[in-house]
């Protein structure tokens, strides 16, 4: 069976601005794919091209093997939820959900049964007669989701569906959308600029920047094995340390210190490169480890963030290097670091990723 969605070398320009350059992507049956990137990276354009709301300059869109590249939205068979909900304000929740069914020539009883089913699915069975203005933001978004799913489309598109909601509702709705998607088992493309959201919801993440797909992978892959420096910095927190290649392969020098790094890029001695390590991967108290990659750093700031505390550190040298280090509450009590203290720490070679210089 052909994949649910297949994008082949999509390119799009707005005047002289290249919004998308050669973007290819496949979405498998029942898969939840998040397109993640900063604003202006082309992610919404990509979604709108799949929806037929924007037309690509080059490339093909195939849904279940059917080439829809030149078809209008109405002939593509998908459901869509927008950031603004776009619920029809003059129709009740039930009439909104039934909107796409009424033109399909279904009889009344069948429509009513389908609407009941969907209200049940999004946990709003008692809100059928409410108008959108009488629903909270989260409830409106759930009605919009039910409306999109009502005609049983073969693809679901979500355009920043959670951005307009406040933080607490957003968390609850993440689970709700994900569980509805699982139950209906519908292939889904969601666009978001929130990396946490993408990590929590996606089966696969597509990271985009400047109209180019930087990486496609599972949340774990994207977080642990970023393919580019952009992905490394955009997804999660990342310390970035400028360095130079050492004579020994797999080693780099930061100031006078030689550090053993993860295998990967091999550069001639002295070439500029960038080391990247996540704050939670920095190990405090170098003693427990082998002598490799241990350093002494000075604490220049503490930021209490609840479950953990983020220490701002500087490594000594001609050019002081800044480094953040996340320490769990319990561990911090043991170390007892204050501003101005000097601490021993280790940068495990397995966590020191190497990228070409930024």
């Amino acid at each position, binding site marked *: 069976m052909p994949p649910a969605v297949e994008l082949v070398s999509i390119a799009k320009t707005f005047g002289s601005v290249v919004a998308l350059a050669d973007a290819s992507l496949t979405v498998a049956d029942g898969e939840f794919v998040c397109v993640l990137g900063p604003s202006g990276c082309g992610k919404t354009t990509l979604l709108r091209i799949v929806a037929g709301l924007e037309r690509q300059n080059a490339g093909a869109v195939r849904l279940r093997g059917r080439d829809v590249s030149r078809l209008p939205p109405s002939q593509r068979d998908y459901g869509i939820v927008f950031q603004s909900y776009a619920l029809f304000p003059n129709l009740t929740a039930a009439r909104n959900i039934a909107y796409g069914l009424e*033109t399909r020539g279904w009889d009344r009883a069948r429509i009513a049964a389908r609407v009941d089913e969907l209200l049940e699915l999004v946990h709003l069975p008692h809100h059928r007669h409410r108008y959108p203005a009488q629903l909270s933001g989260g409830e409106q978004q759930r009605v919009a989701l039910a409306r999109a799913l009502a005609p049983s489309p073969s693809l679901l598109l979500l355009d920043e569906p959670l951005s307009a909601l406040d933080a607490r509702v957003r968390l609850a709705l993440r689970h709700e959308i994900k569980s509805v998607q699982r139950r209906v088992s519908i292939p889904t493309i969601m666009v978001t600029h929130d990396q946490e959201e993408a990590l929590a919801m996606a089966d696969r993440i597509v990271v985009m920047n400047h109209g180019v797909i930087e990486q496609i992978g599972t949340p774990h892959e994207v977080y642990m094995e970023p393919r580019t420096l952009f992905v490394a910095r955009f997804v999660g927190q990342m310390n970035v340390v400028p360095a130079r290649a050492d004579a020994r392969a797999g080693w780099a020098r930061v100031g006078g210190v030689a550090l053993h790094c993860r295998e990967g890029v091999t550069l001639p001695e002295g070439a500029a490169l960038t080391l990247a390590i996540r704050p939670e991967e920095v190990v405090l108290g170098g003693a427990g480890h082998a002598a490799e990659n241990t350093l002494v750093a000075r604490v220049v700031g503490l930021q209490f963030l609840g479950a953990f505390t983020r220490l701002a550190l500087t490594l000594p040298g001609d050019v002081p290097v800044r480094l953040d280090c996340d320490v769990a509450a319990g561990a911090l009590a043991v170390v007892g670091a204050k501003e101005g203290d000097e601490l021993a720490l280790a940068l495990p070679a397995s966590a020191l990723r190497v990228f070409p210089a930024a």
Partner: protein
Amino acid sequence: MSARAIPDRPVRQAWHAEAVLRLALIAFYAAFLTLFVLYPMLQVFTRSLQDGQGRFVGAANYVRYFATPAIASSITNSLAVATGTTLLTVVLAFVYAYALTRSTMPLPGLFRLVIMLPIFAPSLVQGIAFIYVFGNNGLLTRWTGFNVGIYGFKGIVAAETFYALPHAVLILVAALTAADARLYDAASALGASRVKTFVTVTLPGVKYGVMSACFVVFTLVITDFGVPKVIGGKYSVMATEIYNQVIGQQNFTMGATVSVVLLIPAALAVVIDRLVQRRQYALLTASSVPLRPARNRGRDLGLFVYCTLVAGGIAAIYLVILASSLVTRWPYDFTPTTKHYRFDTVGGYTAVWNSIEAAALAAVIGTVLAFAGAYLVEKCRTAASGPLYVLSVLPVSVPGMVLGLAYIFTFNAPGSPLNALYGTLAILVLSHLVHYFTVPFLTATAALKQMDAEFENVSASLGVPFYRTFWRVTVPLALPQIVALSLYFFLNAMVTLSAAVFLVAPGTELAAVAVLLMDDAGDTAQAAAMSVLIIAIGFAVRLLYALLMRGVTRRTQAWTVATR
């Protein structure tokens, strides 16, 4: 990454029924605007460059226009009248609007109502009333034996001021209402005096409103035909000059020449007003706090007296009109009679029924066209959207006299198939709805802009055709505006004179034109009676509208009022 060149254009969408229908509708709208706006206006331009036999003569007509003092003086006269009226009206209207919005004087509701009276009457009614009071045989002239010489500049400015007042007051009330109380709190906290606060907070806040009022009044006055026609005497302005050239001397080319010249100040005022209005919106933010005027006995009393004088003056005009229509012979014989309501000079009530029919048709067709046109321009973006928008807002800058003349050229051209329309009520309906098209079109555009742009996209994704969503969602959401548009069309169509005066034919007389004809014929009492009828019909429809709006509001309440 491949370095393949990206094609400049997006791929073409495959043809489908909905796209074809949408294009057909856009083509129909474009054809309507071309035939009834663009083509007639081009006719005026070309005719101004031809002689009586249709030969091209270049700028010869313009040279003759400026070289003939009797005709050329109409330009300076028009500018003098329009400028004088604008200054007087905006000052009067500003104080009146200030009293309505920034004081706690009694009876604001009544004052709001009375100031709107002139909206319901053709402009020439103001002129007729001034003649009844100050004319050679006027009430005051006879009582005091002193003739102020109302015919000419003085009379035109006085009557036009009353005619334009409600329009200026409406704009200034809106501008003065949109005030942020926090600015006034800040001014008093900083110890600013009342005068300083007025100069540094109030005036800058309404700056654009005042400018807008100036341009609107200027346009109204310079394009008005009714007032100078009845009270101008030998004082010729451009609008009456077009009439004299066309009707009096059958000199169509000179009529066209004066028309093109009249287009310039009218169009300039409209364009500047549009630019100014665009800025006004930005002044009020979502976090603004509405201003509540504090009580101040001296100021409130002063403003109350002022408003009583202005409102009294307006009320007096309409009382004079009403009274003169009900007495045997104003001001000589005050025996009550209803004989003037028989309208024997113009053949009875035909004109009244024609007016109602034409206004109702203009209201229905105009509302459909303006709303659907705005929808096609705003929600169905194509390469034609820009030009169609320009053509849709063009009519507001065309003076009624010019439009009327343009329609003569277009629909009374020998051998043209369009002649079928000439002399029918249909052409009057068309001229009404084109003349007043722009404001409804812009109102509809604003209403559509407020709607979520994704409504159409969601519908398409659900496989619902756009016309169904237009009918099920777009129209219901804009219903209050749609009803208001139809009222605007109806009321204006009832009172307009300028375009209609060229287009009425035996059998299609209109009430407003009948007022002019009866006044011309010396039957001023019947003219007054007809004016009373026009005003009464306007009131009745306005009342009907208020009831209708209450129904609309009740229907739409469920979805507009959140009851969370």
